[in-house]
């Protein structure tokens, strides 16, 4: 079992133990998606129009809430320094860390988004499309989150700064994600937005870990 598999299993095990942090993300996702129809009206075609933005916005807020505990706990207990000192490339290790964090924090969102979609009168294959959109969108979001978290490791109160960094970079994802959901519900051709989301996923998974590794080396200095 090489070191990358080990780190992957270790991080999964740790995030299972830290279930309370992940739960805050999921609860935020459900709450935002649940509150919207209550306060904005719940007739069918209105819900069909707002499901895209609501799902994307709540996945952004969910990732924002649980953004703190990507690197901060590891910095406090010293295991981040051991990662930096290992012989293996830090970008690879950070890629594994981001992947395992994505699985433990964003996969539940994908599952929950199917329930939310059915609550928004979405039926049949469209639910699968909504889930696929959330899957693709959260991959880029998790990379931007980890970069922002790594950049603000040394900062004492990083809350406002992280949001300011996160918002402009995640805007294209929110736009194209909500368009992807809207097109799939209206039955229009959804290849455009999905190509964009996949493209952004590939871009962020290739450049993200490298930038995050460099940011970690700086913050640890």
């Amino acid at each position, binding site marked *: 079992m090489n*070191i990358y598999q*080990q*780190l992957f*299993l*270790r991080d999964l*095990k*740790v995030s299972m*133990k*830290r279930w309370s942090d992940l739960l805050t993300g999921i609860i935020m996702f459900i709450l935002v998606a649940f509150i919207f129809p209550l306060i904005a009206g719940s007739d069918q075609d209105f819900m069909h129009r707002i499901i895209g933005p609501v799902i994307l916005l709540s996945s952004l807020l969910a990732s924002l809430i649980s953004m703190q505990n990507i690197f901060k706990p*590891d910095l*406090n*207990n*010293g*295991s981040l*320094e*051991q*990662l*930096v*000192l*290992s*012989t293996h490339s830090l970008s690879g290790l950070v890629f594994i860390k981001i992947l395992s964090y994505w699985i433990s924090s964003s996969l539940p969102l994908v599952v929950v988004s199917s329930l939310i979609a059915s609550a928004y009168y979405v039926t049949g294959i469209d639910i699968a499309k909504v889930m696929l959109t959330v899957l693709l969108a959260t991959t880029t979001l998790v990379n931007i989150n980890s970069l922002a978290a790594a950049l603000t490791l040394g900062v004492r109160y990083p809350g406002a700064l992280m949001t300011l960094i996160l918002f402009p970079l995640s805007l294209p994802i929110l736009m194209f994600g909500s368009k992807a959901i809207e097109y799939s519900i209206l039955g229009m051709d959804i290849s455009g937005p999905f190509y964009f989301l996949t493209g952004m996923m590939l871009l962020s998974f290739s450049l993200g870990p490298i930038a995050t590794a460099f940011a970690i080396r700086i913050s*640890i*200095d």
Partner: protein
Amino acid sequence: MQSDVLQLDSASLFRDDQLIFNDISFELKSGDHLIIKGNNGSGKTSLIRTLCGLTQLTEGSVLWNHAPIDAISSDYYNHLAYLAHTNGLIPELTLLENLTYSLHKTDLDKDHSVLEGFQLKQSIQSPVATLSNGQSRKAALSFIIMSGKSLWVFDEPYANLDSQSIDYLNQRIAAHLSNNGMVITSTNREEVIPTTNLEITMS
């Protein structure tokens, strides 16, 4: 282990314009034990972190086998094991899990003799969070001893260790040195550590 050499030539570190340490040089060969003395806040930890490559020096450089440690070709990190003030253990996992998933991957982790030496055998299944400060310190020490790396760097290893563990630690360090290993320790107390032959005092 062939003879490695760790050199530090005229290193100095400034944090913006606050001097941390100035013009420190030493040469550590196989079998040497360097002790860094100095009271709190004298820059011991910063010096150790620059030796590990975590902090960038303002002037001077750290050489491993006459090559800078951050050069691509350098295999410095194959030989380095570092114990910081934070123990590098994950509180949520048990001691055994920390050991099996530890990043110093060697086959040594099957024999738990070092853990017995530190009387940690009975608490191997309990999560690190439930261990006392001294116990997790001893666990981190035993991980490094078991890591099989040739250069050990300890940052104040003797803090909150009971005397029985200190003797065991000195015993292991002596064995490591006789086996051509290298050790760097830092301390803020004056007591003499038996096996040291090099010393630096930080002002």
